[in-house]
């Protein structure tokens, strides 16, 4: 429910470990709203979201130890460097990482040589890569990714695909809202299409 408009109703699904859900639907069909409901930012008008049987409202902060949400806004500070962004967001999520490991993660994301300059000097795609670097080290079970493939080049998309495959193989769950075709090997792909 956004404003007076009912975006979707009668939605009922459960996700088991190793599941990949591709969320599709035309603009304005409620993909972002659904993801925000799943991550706990938005309260559903009716119904509830359960994590391992418990309502996420009652789990409160505990639920956030299992989830990582990346929205279409990057969620990184322009004035901070890639390393600082990564270290701070990780520390706030309960896992402190050293400067060295942050550097190697960013190198892996194809940002070698650009880890220590303020993010505002990077291109849109590179900033997206900094934001996505969190996925490598976050260690959470449920990934909620909103339009993450926008402004990424082919190599970055391949990188994300392998990250997600690895995540699913470890028993993780990923819910990804995207318009692009997303091919994954092995994993069970579910498609959830929202209509307007």
């Amino acid at each position, binding site marked *: 429910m956004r404003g007076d408009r009912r975006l979707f109703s009668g939605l009922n699904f459960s996700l088991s470990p190793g599941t990949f859900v591709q969320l599709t639907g035309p603009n304005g069909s409620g993909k972002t709203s659904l993801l925000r409901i799943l991550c706990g930012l938005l309260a559903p008008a009716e119904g509830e979201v359960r994590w391992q049987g418990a309502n996420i409202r009652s789990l409160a902060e505990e639920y956030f130890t299992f989830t990582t949400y990346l929205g279409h806004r990057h969620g990184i500070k322009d004035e*901070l460097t890639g390393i*600082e962004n990564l270290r701070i967001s990780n520390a706030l999520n309960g896992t402190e990482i050293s400067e060295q490991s942050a550097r190697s993660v960013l190198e892996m994301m194809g940002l070698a040589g650009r880890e220590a300059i303020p993010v505002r000097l990077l291109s849109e795609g590179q900033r997206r890569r900094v934001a996505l670097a969190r996925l490598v080290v976050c260690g959470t079970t449920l990934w909620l990714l909103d339009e993450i493939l926008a402004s990424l080049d082919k190599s970055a998309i391949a990188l994300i695909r392998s990250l997600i495959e690895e995540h699913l193989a470890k028993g993780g769950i990923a819910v990804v809202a995207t318009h692009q075709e997303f091919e994954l090997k092995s994993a069970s792909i579910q498609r959830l299409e929202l209509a307007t």
Partner: protein
Amino acid sequence: MFSWIVWRELILAWRRRADVLSTVFFFVIVVSLFPLGIGPEAQLLRSIAPGVVWVAALLASMLSLGRLFANDYQDGTLEQLLLTPQPLYLVVLAKTLAHWLIAEIPLVLIAPLLGIQFDLSQDTLRLLFVTLLLGTPVLSLIGSVGAALTVGLRNSGVLISILVLPLYIPVLIFGAGGVEASIMGTSPQSHIYLLAAITVLSLTFAPWAAAAALRISLE
């Protein structure tokens, strides 16, 4: 976690020094305009000094409060802060503490210097410093509630002022009152105690209120 947020805010403030400095300059200029406008009437200047400095401090903190959550909201880091596995009031408290260190402490430090323009005595300057030190946390704390309520709105600056300035009145009365009492030669003790009480009260409730307001604003 707490220290990470404070550290983050301090780095950000350092990289955006102009924002911090503009607040301090605003404070200096507003306070300095009064002696220039009124002229060298020592008696009058002395009696208006506490009120002028305190009102200028309130207005200066209005300038910085708009940025408290708005910047984080725009780049999506506020969402991420809401999704960290920590109690949200602690996150808000850390950000408020950082705001006090960055935006209010410089005002507290510079105020005694500005007080000289008003021909205040040593004791009164010291008291001005003490009341500001005790009272400015309230400005950050109550201000955080206003900033949280208006995050994501257009023209939130004006709205914050309308919401928050009336709530600052008790701090203004007891803060300026304490300094005035010392000028009159009476004891400022009761004012200082009441100011401390307001600080403790807002420290207890404001982070919770601001956390609740943030959740509503980000829905």
